[in-house]
């Protein structure tokens, strides 16, 4: 506690003392393992259980939550660092291991995944009631959480990769949960493939770093970083860029953001978990894990410029998109992308704590918002806000919790979002003054503008959903308690979550995160900048006020005002900056269509032409020269050889007429010829 006050002033932040963590840390490998094992149990035995497998899923999350919080408490007392590994293969000089790391960063993630997961799993019991694949849903859901835990617990990059892709798989399964409808499958495939493309970056980054260092352990890699390994320094820029591309995919940064809004095709609990604790946080987590690598000027510091630029584009452009969505879940989805932009900017600005703090608080209020959205959708049987309105009265608890989440997201004092967003602004400002230069200054303004946009679209969502006249057909009603209790729980965390890191008063969170086995490099700790905090708050209030002015003022004409279209800007936003269209027209359609068909066509017709040159004589050669792409190929040559033999046989068999007399004629003629030949040649 005392260390917290000291840290407030300090630049480099070292925990007072680190301990191994004892039994609790040694058995931390159970954290990812229990959900994975229970996942199999649900698949094989779930249907026979009284709650159809839900109890196993809930048990796994309960376990993770308790374990995570226990570690968190321990870590708060004394910083824990523990690392364990089991070798699962040796290849040449490389060792592949299953490892688990217990340090401030991973403990924070365990706790977040566990707590948010527990809330969402509980909620899902009510939400998914009556689903035809109820058991399967919980199996995949458990896999989702388990895979994320594999990812965050990994002590080496290969395991990280395993978890990374398993998260992608689980998201594919869950987004496409209602697979009877092909548009859902398309969304699932889009999510998987977009991530897979970004994973190319991750794979290459992992390979570059791992091969250069000679080990895939984070410990060894970061040791090499702190030792200033020159071989690693040479490839650091490309490795850093490649890893960041991987992070961009999972954390939905522009231009890989396209999958996330489409991922709303999945059931709402999935969106909630995906946007809060698992999946999208993976990219930020990776940047946090590799933080010293990006922080050091010797290594990938140059990439930070790119990180901050990409992050700022994402945070502002995607925030604007949230303004024009009618689908409530999509509003929240774009909001997530925008908030992830904040986190990325923070990482790019070298603010380790600030970025992860926002991840921490965002997990609570975004998880909450999605649960509320699910509750509303559950009640009105529509995703669209044009079917909602006036739900404040029939759904009081949903309204209250949604409001709490919205205010937290908008960054209103003293809710969770205020503290974390303020820290991000402060750290960008710090970066602008410490080497970030002009870019950081511009980004600071973008971030402040982003805060306005955030507040503005959340106000819109609140007013369109809960105020005005009800527009839908169904009869809305409050959700059952199994759904509202988790919402209330998360609402509580959204309200108080920020107090774990109040600069100048209580910097426990900074302490927790700083428990890393190796020095974190030169990064500045959080500091409070009262002017910036006030600016952020004022901007957010202005956003709310503007939103109120537009959507609240008159319930009767609320809808007309929402239909107001800003010229030029609106079409751009409506088509999501045409990015999706660009991908479709320039990338997926050509590959699926003409390119694939061309390749298939060449297989039948061109390759054969090449082999032709080897196999056949002058004829084939001439054809390759004449019309290399012509419809002649090895098939033709092979067939022609067979056909030629066939033809010759056809001709010869005509001589076999079965007519004795022709044979006799040939006999005598032949005899004569023989004699003549004999005479001539002797």
């Amino acid at each position, binding site marked *: 506690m005392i260390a917290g006050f000291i840290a407030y002033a300090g630049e480099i932040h070292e925990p007072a003392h680190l301990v191994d963590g004892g039994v609790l840390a040694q058995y931390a490998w159970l954290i990812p393992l229990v959900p994975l094992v229970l996942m199999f149990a649900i698949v094989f035995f779930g249907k026979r259980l009284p709650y159809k497998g839900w109890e196993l899923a809930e048990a796994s999350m309960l376990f993770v939550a308790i374990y995570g919080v226990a570690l968190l408490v321990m870590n708060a007392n004394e910083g824990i660092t523990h690392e364990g590994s089991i070798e699962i293969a040796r290849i040449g000089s490389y060792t592949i291991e299953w490892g688990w790391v217990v340090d401030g960063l991973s403990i924070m993630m365990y706790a977040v995944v566990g707590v948010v997961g527990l809330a969402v799993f509980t909620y899902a019991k009510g939400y998914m009631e009556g689903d035809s694949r109820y058991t399967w849903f919980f199996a995949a859901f458990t896999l989702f959480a388990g895979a994320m835990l594999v990812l965050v617990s990994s002590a080496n990059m290969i395991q990280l990769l395993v978890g990374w892709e398993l998260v992608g798989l689980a998201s594919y399964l869950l987004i496409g949960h209602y697979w009877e409808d092909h548009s859902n499958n398309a969304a699932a495939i889009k999510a998987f493939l977009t991530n897979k493309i970004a994973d190319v970056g991750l794979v290459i980054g992992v390979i570059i770093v791992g091969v250069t260092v000679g080990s895939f352990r984070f410990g060894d890699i970061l040791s090499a970083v702190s030792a200033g390994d020159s071989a690693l320094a040479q490839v650091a820029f490309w490795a850093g860029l490649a890893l960041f591309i991987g992070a961009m995919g999972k954390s939905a940064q522009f231009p890989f953001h396209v999958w996330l809004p489409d991922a709303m095709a999945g059931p709402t609990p999935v969106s909630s978990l995906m946007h809060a604790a698992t999946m999208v946080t993976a990219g930020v987590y990776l940047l946090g894990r590799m933080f010293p690598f990006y922080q050091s000027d010797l290594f990938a510091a140059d990439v930070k410029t790119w990180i901050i630029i990409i992050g700022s584009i994402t945070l502002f452009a995607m925030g604007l998109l949230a303004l024009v969505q009618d689908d409530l879940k999509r509003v929240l989805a774009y909001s997530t992308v925008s908030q992830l932009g904040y986190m990325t900017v923070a990482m790019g600005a070298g603010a380790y704590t600030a970025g992860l703090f926002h991840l921490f608080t965002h997990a609570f209020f975004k998880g909450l918002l999605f649960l509320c959205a699910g509750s509303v959708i559950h009640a009105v049987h529509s995703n669209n806000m044009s079917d909602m309105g006036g739900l404040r009265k029939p759904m009081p608890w949903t309204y209250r919790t949604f409001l709490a989440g919205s205010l937290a997201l908008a960054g209103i004092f003293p809710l969770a979002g205020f503290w974390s967003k303020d820290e991000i602004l402060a750290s960008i400002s710090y970066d602008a003054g410490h080497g970030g230069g002009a870019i950081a200054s511009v980004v600071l303004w973008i971030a402040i503008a982003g805060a306005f946009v955030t507040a503005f679209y959340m106000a819109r969502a609140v007013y369109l959903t809960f105020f005005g006249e009800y527009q839908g057909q169904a009869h809305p009603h409050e959700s059952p308690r199994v759904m509202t209790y988790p919402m209330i729980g998360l609402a509580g965390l959204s309200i108080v979550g920020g107090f774990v890191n109040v600069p100048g008063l209580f910097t426990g969170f900074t302490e927790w995160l700083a428990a890393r086995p190796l020095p974190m490099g030169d990064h500045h700790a959080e500091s409070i900048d009262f002017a910036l905090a006030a600016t952020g708050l004022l901007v957010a209030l202005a956003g709310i006020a503007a939103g109120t002015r537009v959507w609240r003022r008159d319930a009767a004409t609320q809808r007309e005002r929402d239909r107001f279209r800003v010229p030029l800007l609106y079409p751009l936003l409506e088509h999501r900056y045409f990015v999706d269209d660009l991908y479709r027209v320039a990338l997926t359609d050509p590959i699926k269509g003409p390119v694939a068909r061309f390749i298939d066509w060449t297989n039948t017709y061109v390759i054969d032409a090449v082999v032709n040159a080897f196999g056949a004589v002058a004829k084939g050669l001439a054809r390759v020269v004449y019309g290399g792409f012509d419809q002649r190929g090895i098939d033709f040559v092979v067939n022609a050889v067979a056909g030629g033999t066939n033809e010759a046989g056809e001709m010869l068999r005509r001589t076999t007429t079965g*007519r004795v007399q022709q044979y006799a004629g040939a006999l005598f003629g032949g005899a004569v010829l023989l004699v003549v030949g004999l005479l001539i040649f002797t």
Partner: protein
Amino acid sequence: MLVSQFLVLAALLFSIGVYGVLVRRNAVLVLLSIELMLTAVSINLVAFGAYLQDTLLSGQVFALFVITIAAAEVGIGLAIVVMIFRNRSSANLDELDLMRW
């Protein structure tokens, strides 16, 4: 008497027989032509026998054998022709191509 004159005559008969074998459609006529060829052979044999003054008379003996074989051949040949005719109502060779695969 020269040897050649008999041989040339026999060659002529033989060739006529060949022509007949090749050109006739009716099986019986083909058999007739074969008889012609066999006769030519017999003439040759006897002529050689006379020319060589062979004490063993092998020329004549072989001519006799040829006659005997010819008789056997005609018997079997006609039997086949009769049978084929019975099965197919025709003794035309060009309608027979059972040896074709």
